[in-house]
């Protein structure tokens, strides 16, 4: 009984877009291959977490964002970082704990961010925590009038945390412009998804939050991108958070130390045949979007870039020991002058314009797609049942998307694209 929406039919992308997706997936894989070699040479200080076989998700989703948008990746989303504009050298220096790294050696892996330019929030190891953080980013974006979208990722494993629920529920009740990518790679370390969750599609959880969701083949980069693009546009238009489950497979172990011998051979073989880069390359060649010469040009470009960046990282110094005791606190405006970028009149947020009547019930507040169906045998009692039924019918008729992001307690509920009359046997 699937409740998720079918992704939009892949639209035709521009030739450059097709090539961009290919470039970034290849770059993603080559960066990780280079790091595997560095790891074997003992040049990576800590662990190394691979996204082999999952590149289409990192690249396809991040490619749907605009420059002004915000992202908070997980440790394996190297491809998302590259698409957003992080140079490979930052990824190398981070893993090698160099003083030239974005965190100056204070943290490793893809644990770094950039608030000012690239709008990246650093991952942490406690999965799920970034969902409410990015909800706050989306709320602040709306508050400042910026019309941004916040994207973050979670795995099948991380989706079992309490903060996944708290974050997604807050995002839903606030109608925050959050796009959550649930990368179901079938394994949380050594525990298969079937031992974690008793449902087939993790995207089905969206229904409980009253939000929209999609299920997409995570190894099909065009499908991932098209779906993410649609979700980003809907979130930006004020429809609230959207969950995308991307089905894929983690082809390496949890980290380099883990040979993942617990994975059944036939499962691995099935997914290796569906390698997202090989499948996509074949598509590009069949469609005459890429030829041998074009492929070589891309490969040469990647090799030259990685050679230069790897050398930079290898030749960079380790952080001086005396910096260990620096930087716990912000020391004031000379350290960080924290000024928001207002893109709306500030006086709207100050009295007298900000003054409101403190009423208990706000029509439409937090009312999501699943609860708008009007199929509840017992009603809340805040509006007469007849009115509720009428409203449900009206919202089913409404087809247009919300025009702009309403503040959370908007007077009118945004018409739900997916609010259709309840069907037999399902919503």
């Amino acid at each position, binding site marked *: 009984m699937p409740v998720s929406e079918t992704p939009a039919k892949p639209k035709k992308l521009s030739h450059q877009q097709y090539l961009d997706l290919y470039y970034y997936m290849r770059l993603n894989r080559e960066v990780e291959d280079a790091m595997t070699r560095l790891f074997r040479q003992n040049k990576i200080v800590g662990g190394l977490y691979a996204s082999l076989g999952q590149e289409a998700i990192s690249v396809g989703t991040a490619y749907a964002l605009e420059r002004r948008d915000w992202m908070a990746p997980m440790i394996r989303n190297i491809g998302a970082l590259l698409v957003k504009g992080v140079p490979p050298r930052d990824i190398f220096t981070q893993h090698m704990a160099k003083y030239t790294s974005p965190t100056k050696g204070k943290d490793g892996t893809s644990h770094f961010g950039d608030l000012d330019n690239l709008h990246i929030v650093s991952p942490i190891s406690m999965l799920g925590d970034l969902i409410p953080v990015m909800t706050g980013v989306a709320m602040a974006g709306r508050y400042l009038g910026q019309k941004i979208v916040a994207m973050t990722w979670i795995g099948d494993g991380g989706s079992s945390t309490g*903060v996944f629920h708290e974050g997604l529920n807050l995002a839903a009740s606030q109608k925050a412009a959050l796009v959550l990518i649930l990368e179901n790679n079938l394994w949380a370390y050594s525990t298969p998804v079937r031992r974690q969750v008793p449902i087939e599609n993790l995207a089905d959880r969206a229904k409980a939050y009253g939000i929209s969701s999609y299920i997409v083949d995570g190894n099909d980069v065009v499908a991932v991108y098209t779906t993410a693009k649609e979700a980003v546009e809907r979130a930006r238009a004020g429809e609230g958070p959207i969950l995308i489950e991307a089905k894929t497979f983690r082809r390496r172990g949890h980290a380099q130390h883990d040979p993942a011998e617990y994975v059944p051979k036939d499962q691995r073989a099935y997914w290796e045949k569906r390698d997202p880069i090989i499948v996509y390359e074949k598509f590009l060649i069949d469609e005459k979007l890429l030829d041998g010469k074009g492929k070589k040009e891309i490969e040469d470009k990647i090799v030259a870039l990685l050679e230069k960046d790897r050398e930079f990282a290898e030749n960079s110094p380790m952080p001086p020991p005396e910096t260990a005791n620096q930087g716990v606190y912000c020391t004031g405006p000379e350290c960080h002058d924290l000024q928001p970028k207002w893109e709306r009149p500030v006086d709207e947020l100050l009295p007298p314009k900000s003054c409101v009547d403190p009423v208990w019930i706000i029509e439409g507040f937090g009312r999501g797609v699943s609860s708008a169906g009007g199929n509840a045998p017992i009603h809340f009692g805040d509006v007469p049942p007849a009115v509720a039924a009428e409203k449900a019918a009206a919202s089913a008729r409404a087809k247009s998307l919300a025009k702009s992001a309403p503040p959370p307690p908007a007077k009118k509920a945004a018409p739900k694209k997916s609010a259709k009359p309840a069907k037999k046997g399902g919503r």
Partner: protein
Amino acid sequence: MAPITFLEAIRQAMFEEMAADPRVVLIGEDVGVYGGAFKTSEGLLEKFGWERVIDTPISESAIIGAACGMSYLGLRPIAEMQFIDFIACCFNQLTNFVAKGHYLWNAPAPIVVRGPSGGGVHGGPFHSLNPEMYFLHTPGFKIVYPSTPYDAKGLLKSSIRDNNPVLFFEHKFLYRRIKEEIPSDDYTLPLGKAIVRREGKHLTILSYAAMMHTSLEAADALAKEGIEAEVIDLRTLLPLDEETILASVKKTNKCLVVHEDTKTGGIAGEISAILFEKAFHDLDGPLVRVASLDTPVPYAPTLEEAFLPNAQKVFVAAKDLARF
């Protein structure tokens, strides 16, 4: 101006900061229409609207996470814990993400997490917590625990303007029990500055929050016995004002620490270590601790009274110390 309560001081600080700076927002449970469980945010929604006074689901981790995310775009959120005991629910979000951000990836999180703390009002084991030491051990926070309406207002304003995450604890026993006249101008008090509440020469009593008043009461009784205690209100626990502490101990040569937090792992232990490191030769007696029992906060009035320090316990301990 008429004297105001501690509660009113908190409300005024938030109100004035929100009126002066559109970057300041309030997020928490029941803070909007209801005006907060203790009415600390009464009237804020009417004045500043739905976008700036945000009622949330019962989700402390989401409250802290969202406040942190909002701060990344330049806002200055105040996150309210309805009772400070619930800060344990968002411990991970605070200690692993918010506190480490500036050190790790140059991301300051200028948020204030505030809420009613402390015992003495028969709130029982889940509504009486003194949580300061859970967080004092985490580099990256500032921790404020005021004892008077004047301090509460001035310190809360400074906390909101600070670029770091500040944990601001409001002792609920003081909310309506003390009143004070405060200036009408826009004053602030610096974080990390203790104050000498009563001068004395025989011994130093260090305290903060509700126990500061208990210590002053004990000092009055001690004075009648000819013992002049110097009472210092720490006001901020992180950063701790070592300078004021050391100057006083240098003068009195004896030190008693009074806190309502449980004894083991309380701040008295940390202060004791500081005195051993930096004032060993100035000490004429042991550092003495008067603190709550090492138990959960019990509910029955007879048990809670036994659990908490009081002026009599401080008086006895100080008299013993004065004999050295």
